[in-house]
């Protein structure tokens, strides 16, 4: 085997590497949205939270020199965005989907406003773990250079899957999500649980944004997100509100997103933009295939407005 150029094997390898690299933001946003939706609310504003998180993480990393502090700061801002969403939605006659759209526009606007002066400076990147030391092929080494956040995301998916079933908090969340009245009868305040769930969801979505600006692609600009925050909402439906399903679906989406660049790297340049659309087409096809006009979706939280 040659050191350079592994021929067509480069395509599946690039898709594999891309799946891991591109999927990480999807993992965090979709896990966050799962927590929120399990409580019976939908937050469509995560796209704005993600971009604002990306900006905050980058700005804080530039100023302090620590990418970890950047991620923590992003989580804090994400929680604030989630809290605003959760607080507004507790009022009667307020539509959570519409508020989500408004929060998305607000988050994007605020991120572009405050982030204007951070487009130029370079921030330190998040660390990654080189797992490809056993191979002499540089492409394999590069593909197995995996970011810490990917592993944290995978662990978080497992943890949430366990916690939804086995902890008191998980049970409370599911009761509120399935029936507001049942929760009230149990003495739980649905509004408070939903507010906390939306805040937690926002804080996870912001980690996804921090990954974008601090690792891959690893810079801050106004086009940093290509709709990951929104696609994650569709992904949660596909994953049937199951955290492990979210993780696997995120990998699938990551792979679809890596298709275009992977083919380009081996010289396929025709139809580049069509490959760029692959994740969106895939999302749409999955939504069409898994939805039904007559029955409500299996596994859907009963109080969720999305599926009514």
């Amino acid at each position: 085997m040659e050191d350079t150029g592994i021929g067509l094997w480069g395509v599946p390898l690039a898709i594999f590497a891309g799946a891991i690299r591109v999927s990480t933001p999807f993992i965090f946003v979709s896990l966050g949205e799962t927590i929120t939706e399990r409580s019976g609310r939908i937050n469509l504003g995560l796209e704005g939270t993600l971009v604002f998180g990306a900006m905050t993480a980058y700005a804080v990393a530039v100023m302090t020199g620590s990418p970890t502090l950047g991620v923590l700061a992003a989580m804090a801002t994400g929680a604030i965005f989630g809290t605003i969403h959760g607080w507004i939605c507790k009022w009667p006659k307020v539509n959570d989907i519409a508020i989500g759209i408004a929060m998305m526009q607000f988050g994007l606007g605020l991120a572009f406003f405050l982030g204007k002066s951070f487009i130029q400076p370079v921030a330190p990147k998040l660390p990654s773990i080189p797992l490809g030391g056993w191979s002499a092929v540089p492409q394999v080494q590069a593909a197995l250079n995996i970011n810490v956040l990917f592993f944290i995301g995978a662990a978080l998916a497992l943890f949430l899957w366990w916690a939804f079933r086995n902890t008191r908090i998980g049970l409370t969340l599911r009761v509120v999500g399935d029936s507001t009245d049942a929760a009230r009868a149990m003495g739980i305040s649905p509004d408070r649980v939903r507010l906390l769930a939306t805040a937690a969801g926002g804080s996870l979505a912001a980690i996804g944004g921090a990954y974008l600006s601090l690792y891959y692609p690893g810079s801050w600009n106004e086009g940093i997100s290509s709709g990951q925050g929104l696609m994650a909402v569709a992904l949660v439906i596909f994953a049937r509100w199951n955290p492990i399903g979210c993780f696997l679906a995120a990998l699938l989406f990551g792979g679809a997103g890596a298709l275009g660049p992977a083919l380009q790297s081996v010289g396929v340049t025709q139809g580049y933009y069509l490959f760029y659309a692959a994740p969106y087409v895939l999302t749409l096809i999955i939504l069409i295939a898994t939805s039904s006009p007559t029955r409500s979706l299996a596994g859907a939280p009963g109080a969720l407005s999305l599926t009514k």
Partner: protein
Amino acid sequence: MTAEANDPRLSIAAGGNASFRPLLEWLARRAEPVAIGLVAILIGLALFSLFILAVGKSPLTLFQLMYTGGFGSWFSIQNSLSRAAPLLLTALCVALPARLGLVIIGAEGAVVLGGVAAAASAMPFVGIVPPIVLFVFMAIAAMVVGGIWIGFAGFLRHYRGVNETISSLLLAYIAIALMNQFVEGLLRDPASLNKPSTKPLPKDYMLGQIPGMDVHWGLVIGVIACILSWVLIEITSFGFAARIAGGNVRAAQIQGLPVGKLIVGFTAIAGGFAGLAGMIEVAAVQGSANASLAAGYGYTGILVAFLARHNPLAIIPVAILLGGISASGGLIQRRMGLPDATVLVLQGTLFIVILFCETFYGRFKIFNPDLWKRS
């Protein structure tokens, strides 16, 4: 208009003089959205002022510049009106489905594909047919493509149960990718080097200005579209059926209304209007289809529609107001050194506050004649 809301005589007369009562009831019901809307805008502006103060600038100067840049001179008014033209059409793309209870946010997709369709359909006919015929061809192509695009989201909603908010947005991303593919590939004018575009329309085949104004005909088309939409919703039986279905789908189905056809029809008309906005961008502003079509008109249209509470006639003043705000963006940037995203922050703040203020509907006795009866 808020005078009715605040007029103390209203509540006195309401209980007393019976002959004015129908008029007062009508006024009170009409006053509620206007009063709540204005209060919402004031709260939004107040919050935005706090934000501007926090970044160390003067909100008063900013609002002054906003007025100057948007409506302070005949030049800026014309600029605002030109920017309002596409917003009228993209707002209709949100407002019409909203009357059926659908939240469609993918107007941007219909705009860009409408623009591409218009540019592509114009190519074989330039120089052969007179401009007015060409415009008709372009408009039909744009409306058909836009209508199919958004109509598909409506179709998926009714026949497959796919959430239309998400599908319309995914379709918008797909549309932008398709546009890039067409503009960089099949339809690319080899002469366009730096910015890939379709072949530009010759000058005499451009949609010109309204006589006596520096505003293109798109404004007139948009206003006509709003009036037609209002007639469609408020006067025709098609619109009446749609409003019933928007209020309660089950009830409409039990009444035997063709809910599926209504949803697909309304979303297709809505998409047609957004497609027309793309055609106007090509025929009146850009001269060709290129990446500038995805300028965010579809997203600002969402805000316009919600501000207007999905009333097609209310869209006209709201679109002009937001056109003015965006027209003033450049001036704010130059004079105050604030980023161009200032306008986006203001729009986002207003959007959130206005949706929040939905909660005040029905809470004030003065707007509800049924509660006026004295004990």
